[in-house]
């Protein structure tokens, strides 16, 4: 008897067609025949084949049964599962670009619930071999564009897809392309922004390291659409492997006449070069990035003019994020209509998140827009380890905000996240449990943006410094009445008056934590208490009656603050205690209390 895994798509459309009922019948049928131990049932999120739903995928072999009815179930079990004879009559041929990923990973819960469009090849192909990419319809989108589409048609397709910038701001990509294409003159630039700088974010690095050709293909199509011959990938030097794989990919693409002069026998020329950034956070901002490529100090400048009209070396420039570029070949091959069927009214397609922090399954997650944060954290992420309680989910890195438990049902789309007080951002998602102090988290992110502020405009340079000073004194137990209001006033001022996105978003972590966790701030300021037990200066360690006098804490204390005789209760000298917490973690009898 062979082992099988059957995946049932329970995306919204398939549920609407009673996929859950089919699952119940399937389980019944398997139980009746005593096959339960041989067949594993998985439930997946939307797999993008809505028009064929409800459907089942039987592995191994990746047979897709579409338009399945209740009476088909016994037939599938009898023929395919028992006799190992796939049923051609019910099988549908869906050669989606991302099928291959699911062939290998579709029955793993963590992956099955995702929808992999931009990451479709990550983890299944050799990124250093163009053959692996070509074999999976690689560069076919480029060939299609060069064969049957005018630049205007390409732009119309991207516009119709509803794709928006994945760097975080969400500007409609097609519109950006159109604006750049309209500019006169033969000299234009295409840039891929791979200056990923959010602490804890690694979406772009993984995408480039796993499938560099997708990004190149997207850029070449972009060059064709706007009439440019010159592409640049701006990537930080601290991603050496990603840089090397890009170099290899560019070299191989040139050998195959996919880059360079007369691409694929046409008269279209396009080449791509790599520019390394030194790792300044502000260089992710497009105007600062352009300055950095030009050899100047990476500092933003006021917009307009936007790069679309006057960008690199004063020429029209099309600049998109890594993930945005990776969507382009899919849109061309699968069609704008299909792409726009995924997601919400205003946000189409999928979004990649780097899921990190206090969550069981950390990793890269790609989900359709409109998926709720709760689904990402619990269904895919597996929830919070150690039975702890979730305090907040941080999205958007240092430019984003913290959302509390009550906001977990916020769908992932540009507007909903902004309304909740955070932002989509480039895709950082950090889960925090009860051991995280919201004031300290806000201080951490602000410390980052403050040190990364380029110093050009006063609100960002001076404002973030003042805000950080206030936060530092709060966590030191020196907070003053009115500090919360001062932070709010400063924060709103910085948001309104800063020159670029860095300053305009830097107060978000502080403002969102004040909005959702105001009582934590109040406890820090008024009662000099850190409820999460994080802010060292506000903690007091005492030994309770549970102490058996084993002496372990005395031994581990680095400053000799603990005294007591063996088998008797020990005492901590508060004047000597440096609140390092070593006694707390060492004690086996829970006899040390922290408050």
């Amino acid at each position, binding site marked *: 008897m062979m082992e099988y895994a059957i995946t049932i798509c329970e995306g919204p459309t398939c549920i609407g067609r009673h996929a859950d009922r089919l699952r119940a019948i399937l389980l019944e049928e398997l139980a009746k025949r005593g096959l339960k131990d041989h067949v594993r049932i998985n439930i997946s999120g939307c797999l993008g084949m809505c028009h064929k739903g409800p459907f089942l995928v039987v592995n191994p072999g990746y047979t897709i049964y579409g338009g399945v009815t209740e009476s088909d179930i016994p037939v599938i079990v009898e023929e395919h599962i028992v006799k190992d004879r796939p049923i051609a009559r019910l099988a549908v041929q869906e050669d989606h670009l991302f099928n291959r990923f699911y062939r290998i990973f579709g029955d793993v819960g963590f992956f099955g619930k995702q929808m992999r469009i931009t990451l479709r090849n990550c983890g299944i192909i050799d990124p250093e071999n163009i053959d692996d990419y070509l*074999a999976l319809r690689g560069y076919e989108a480029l060939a299609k564009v060069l064969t049957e589409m005018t630049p205007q048609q390409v732009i119309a397709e991207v516009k119709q897809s509803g794709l928006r910038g994945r760097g975080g701001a969400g500007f409609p990509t097609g519109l950006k392309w159109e604006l750049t294409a309209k500019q006169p003159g033969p000299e234009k630039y295409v840039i891929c922004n791979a200056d990923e700088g959010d602490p804890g974010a690694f979406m772009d690095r*993984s995408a480039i390291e796993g499938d560099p050709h997708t990004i190149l293909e997207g850029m070449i199509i972009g060059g064709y659409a706007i009439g440019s011959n010159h592409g640049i990938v701006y990537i930080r030097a601290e991603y050496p492997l990603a840089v090397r794989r890009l170099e290899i990919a560019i070299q191989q693409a040139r050998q195959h006449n996919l880059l360079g002069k007369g691409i*694929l026998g046409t008269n279209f020329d396009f080449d791509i070069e790599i520019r390394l950034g030194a790792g300044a956070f502000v260089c992710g901002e497009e105007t600062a990035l352009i300055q950095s490529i030009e050899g100047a100090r990476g500092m933003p400048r006021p917009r307009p003019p936007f790069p679309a009209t006057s960008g690199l070396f004063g020429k029209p420039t099309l600049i998109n994020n890594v993930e945005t570029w990776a969507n382009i070949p899919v849109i061309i091959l699968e069609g704008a209509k299909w792409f726009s069927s995924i997601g919400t009214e205003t946000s189409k397609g999928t979004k990649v998140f780097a899921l990190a922090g206090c969550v069981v*399954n950390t*990793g*890269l997650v790609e989900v359709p827009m409109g998926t709720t944060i709760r689904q990402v954290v619990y269904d895919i992420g597996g929830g919070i380890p150690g039975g702890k309680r979730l305090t907040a989910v941080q999205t958007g890195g240092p430019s984003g905000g913290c959302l509390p438990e009550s906001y977990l049902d916020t769908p992932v789309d540009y507007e909903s996240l902004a309304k909740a007080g955070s932002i989509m951002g480039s895709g950082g998602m950090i889960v925090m449990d009860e051991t995280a102090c919201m004031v300290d988290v806000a201080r951490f992110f602000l410390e980052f943006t403050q040190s990364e502020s380029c110093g050009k405009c006063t609100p960002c340079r001076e404002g973030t410094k003042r805000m950080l000073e206030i936060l530092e004194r709060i966590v030191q137990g020196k907070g003053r009445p009115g500090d919360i209001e001062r932070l709010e006033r400063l924060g709103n001022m910085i948001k309104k008056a800063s020159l670029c996105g860095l300053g305009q978003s830097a107060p978000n972590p502080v403002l969102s934590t004040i909005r959702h966790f105001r009582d934590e701030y109040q406890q820090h300021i008024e009662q000099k208490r850190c409820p999460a037990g994080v802010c060292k200066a506000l903690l007091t360690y005492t030994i309770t009656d549970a102490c058996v006098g084993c002496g372990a804490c005395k031994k581990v204390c680095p400053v000799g603050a603990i005294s007591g005789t063996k088998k008797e209760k020990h005492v901590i000298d508060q004047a000597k205690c440096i609140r390092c917490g070593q006694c707390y973690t060492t004690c086996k009898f829970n006899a040390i209390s922290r408050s």
Partner: protein
Amino acid sequence: MVTPLDLIRKKRAEAVSRIIGKGYLAAKRVYVGMATCEIAAGSKEVMEVFKQAIAKGIVKDVYLSQKGCAGRCNLEPTVEVIETGKMPVRYGRIDADKARQIIEKHLKGGQVIEEWVIG
């Protein structure tokens, strides 16, 4: 006239035959995660174990390839063993020693080591 689409279809066919020429149709295909994150977790040593085993002829009829990161951070390094007609087997948290055991038990003995499998 030869269109770019014709050209790319030809390239695709050539690429497939080159991959097959490298032994893709072997009985077992082994993929080792080799992104920065996987390498940091120790996947280079794992890769080396498989490479050596093939070079020394300890295992035969195995196609070995590197791959990028699928995104399973806390279970890296990851290794997949894929056999036609069978469920792909995905191993997590593999080190050099576990790789040797995969070679012995799974590749040679046909025995999946369940406790390391990512479900």
